[in-house]
């Protein structure tokens, strides 16, 4: 992080709580995310990281009986305000899921181009350019450039995950949410994706859920520690890992529980 550039808060969660039916999975989360940074969300399994992440691009809208309260501001505007369209929000806030989920009937090329194509972009040159750029950004271009027209399901798991990253990048989101994107990958693919994040943050702000403490320490600028639905501590990654303020954070990071 450079101190000279002015820090703009792109995303701000204000007293966010998320309910599955009557059970609250996440409570009173207040969190500011500065643009062009990588932000790690850590915490033991079931503490609500995925739940919180899915609230940010309104993915909970599609699951019945799920409710989000509080405010989530994207560049100052509440994405849950009545006049906001979830489709537009998701266009601006992309998501990469824990398990690779390429579109099964589409080729590699069509997967990456799908977001633009289905939004009405027809110009072949533009599509070609963005597909190549996105695949390069996802460090997949060299491996697939000779077989762009082959089915995406023919790729390995790690390649499929990078394809999903490329697909998310192709629509040029402002924020990218990544839910344990490397949990199903080998160390080499993981390293490539980690390298990628440093590059990507020039263009997009990243929130990444990870169970891998080294990964959080390596790639992120800030870290948020969740525990049973509460955001226990949030701060610069250096500070969280070397000098946590909360005993529970320290306990989790040093591996005493979780």
């Amino acid at each position, binding site marked *: 992080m450079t101190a000279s550039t002015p820090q703009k808060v792109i995303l701000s969660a204000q007293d966010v709580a998320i309910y599955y039916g009557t059970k609250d999975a996440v409570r009173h989360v207040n969190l500011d995310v500065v643009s062009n940074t990588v932000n790690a969300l850590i915490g033991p399994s079931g503490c609500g990281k995925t739940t919180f992440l899915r609230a940010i*691009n309104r*993915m909970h809208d*599609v699951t*019945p009986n799920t409710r989000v309260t509080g405010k989530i501001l994207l560049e100052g505007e509440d994405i849950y305000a009545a006049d906001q369209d979830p*489709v*537009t*929000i*998701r*266009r*601006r806030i*992309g*998501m990469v*899921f824990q*398990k690779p*989920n*390429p*579109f*099964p*009937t*589409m080729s590699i090329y069509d997967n990456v181009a*799908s*977001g633009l194509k*289905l*939004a009405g972009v027809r110009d072949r040159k533009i599509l070609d350019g963005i597909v190549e750029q996105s695949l390069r950004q996802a460090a997949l271009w060299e491996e697939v450039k000779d077989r762009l027209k082959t*089915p995406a399901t023919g790729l390995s798991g790690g390649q499929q995950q990078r394809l*999903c990253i490329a*697909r*998310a990048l192709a*629509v040029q*989101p402002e924020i990218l949410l990544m839910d344990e994107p490397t949990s199903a990958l080998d160390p080499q693919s993981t390293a490539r994706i980690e390298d990628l994040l440093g590059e990507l943050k020039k263009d997009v702000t990243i929130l990444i859920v990870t169970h891998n403490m080294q990964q959080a320490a390596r790639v992120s600028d800030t870290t948020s520690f969740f525990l049973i639905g509460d955001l226990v501590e949030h701060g610069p990654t250096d500070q969280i890992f070397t000098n946590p303020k909360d005993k529970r954070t320290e306990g989790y990071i040093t591996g005493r529980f979780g």
Partner: protein
Amino acid sequence: MSMAGQLDLSGTRSQILRRQSSRKASNIFAGVVISICTLIVLIPLFAIFYYLISKGISSINLEFFTQSFKPIGETGGGMLHAIVGTLEMVGLASVIGVLLGVSGGIFLAEYREHKLVPWISLVSDVLSGIPAIVMGLVVYAMIVLTSKHYSGLAGALALGFLMVPIVVRTTEEVLKLVPSTIREAGLALGLPKWKVTLSVILPAATSGIVTGVMLAVARVSGEAAPLIFTAFGNNNFNADPRDPMAAMPLSIYQYAISPFPEWHRLANAGALVLIIMVFSATLIARVATRQRK
């Protein structure tokens, strides 16, 4: 580890081995039972084929496909009129069945929260419970009585309504099989739900939907009852669906109940050809959708 622990371990091991051998036995037993059941199911199928081939193959010749009904006394005569009628009516019925059925199935599977869903589900269940002949009567009252005219279109409508519930249910089932992670991937790209459904989910379910449509086609191709009061049948060649039309099952029935052995052979030949037509339609549809993958 202590001695006792080791003893314990070998004990469980022999237990596991014993259980394995009994598992092998039950495996073989299940295999035998399943094979016998399969055979029992296959017997009527082969019996039907054997019967139809032995009784009807002699009547399958060029005339059968190029000539229409000939009154008794005249030599020759074929089923061209019925083949054309069945092809046209089942084709038109498929348009109705696919349009209504696939959209109903999409609605049931993808818009489960919608308040119309229980109603669509109910209508589809009721439709599938209506006997084919009643469907014919309904269309007779709705179309034939009001237009004062039997027609291939009325027949196609009755067959189409019979197809709808089959297509609705299979479409619903195969769409539910598409993993929800694929839906979420589409939505997360900022695509509206209907676009995700039509461009991502539906293509992933195409081969299953085609199977359902072919099932429905096979079901209605052999129906005579709903055509009696609608298409009515026609002894002359007619390719205009606005007029009364012949159909394979109607002609087969007409030939089969006659007292003439010559016509019995034609009936058996017609049944054989009908089965082959349905079978090849299914095959072609399967191959066509496989290539699209």
